[in-house]
């Protein structure tokens, strides 16, 4: 009888410890990720990157980008890892105004942003000095068209918060970026059209 109790106890302990391990590795839901993109309650692990341009010079960042636009971040779609520890966050956005290039308006588009939640969902992984967009906020996004038609915002100054949401045209960042666009420093490289480009034809 005693022996049966002991086996029972061992089994119980095993079940408890297995379920604890399972809970520890539990992934967060999409809704939860969308929420903590705003609350920033997870720690940040900053990735060191080298850039081909001076990312502090907005004329160069605008020149390098294919699309510069004002958008509303409507929601979180998913995170992709592309065979790497480095996440890419897919946001659902709506373009409010195009500054460079012409993306579809009045439609839900997917914006890919370099950085996001880690594979184990225990931290955010992001380029040093970069910012992850928050849901329901407005940003100026400076993005690159990808060969597969995606739009990618990658690196420092690839999304700038619009504080004056109701009147973006008088926001200091909007004024800065339109000024940078007038004086853009363009780099020659192979460029790709986004599938959301109004001139896209496959």
């Amino acid at each position, binding site marked *: 009888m005693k022996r049966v109790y002991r086996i029972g106890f061992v089994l119980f302990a095993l079940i408890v410890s297995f379920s604890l391990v399972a809970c520890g590795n539990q992934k967060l839901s999409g809704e939860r990720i969308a929420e903590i993109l705003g609350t920033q309650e997870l720690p940040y692990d900053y990735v*060191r990157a080298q*850039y081909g*341009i*001076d990312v502090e010079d907005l004329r160069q960042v605008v020149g390098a980008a294919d699309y510069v636009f004002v958008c509303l971040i409507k929601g979180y779609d998913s995170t992709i890892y592309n065979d790497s520890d480095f996440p890419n966050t897919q946001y659902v956005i709506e373009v409010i105004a195009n500054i460079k290039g012409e993306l579809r308006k009045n439609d839900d588009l997917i914006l890919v942003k370099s950085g996001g939640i880690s594979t184990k969902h225990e931290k955010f992984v992001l*380029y040093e000095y970069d910012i992850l967009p928050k849901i329901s906020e407005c940003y100026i996004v400076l993005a690159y068209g990808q060969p597969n038609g995606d739009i990618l915002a*990658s*690196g420092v100054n690839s999304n700038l918060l619009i504080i004056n949401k109701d009147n973006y045209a008088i926001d200091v960042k909007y004024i800065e970026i339109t000024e940078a666009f007038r004086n853009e420093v363009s780099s020659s490289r192979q460029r790709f059209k986004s599938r959301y480009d109004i001139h896209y034809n496959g």
Partner: protein
Amino acid sequence: MVSMLVTLVCGVVVTARFNKVEAYSLLSWDLVDSGKHMDWDGSCSYMTEWYESVKVWNSYKPGVIRVDTIWIVQDVKIKDYREVSSTLAKTLSTGKIEFNTYNFDNMTTEQRQKTMMHEIGHGLGLGHVSDGVSIMRQGVISQTWLSADDKAGYDAAYKKY
């Protein structure tokens, strides 16, 4: 009056020399193990430049960066990625060093080597510097040698491993 001036001038010289000594920064992490080795594996499209980069760092402190074998635990894994963006390369605190072939394919051998040496520098625990001619500054640069600041940074980082 003269002695005051002398003191002032000496102070300026000492400050200037002190600033010179501090022309590097250290990260809060590194990818070097407790045995003071950075053992790497993986591969990328530009292995010649990678081996050269390892060689230059090892010529300053021999034997620290080693190719991983089945007998030792890997600290760093290198790989390519391809995306249209201005990022040339990145180093993750989890021990991954990744090179963007979209940009690497259009760079010179020397520019690729500088970029790889720079990422190895992060693995060794070095942070960015904003001025000087260091490997640890940003940008597409043709430099295949370590500056005095890079070496000083490495010396300081080495003491922390």
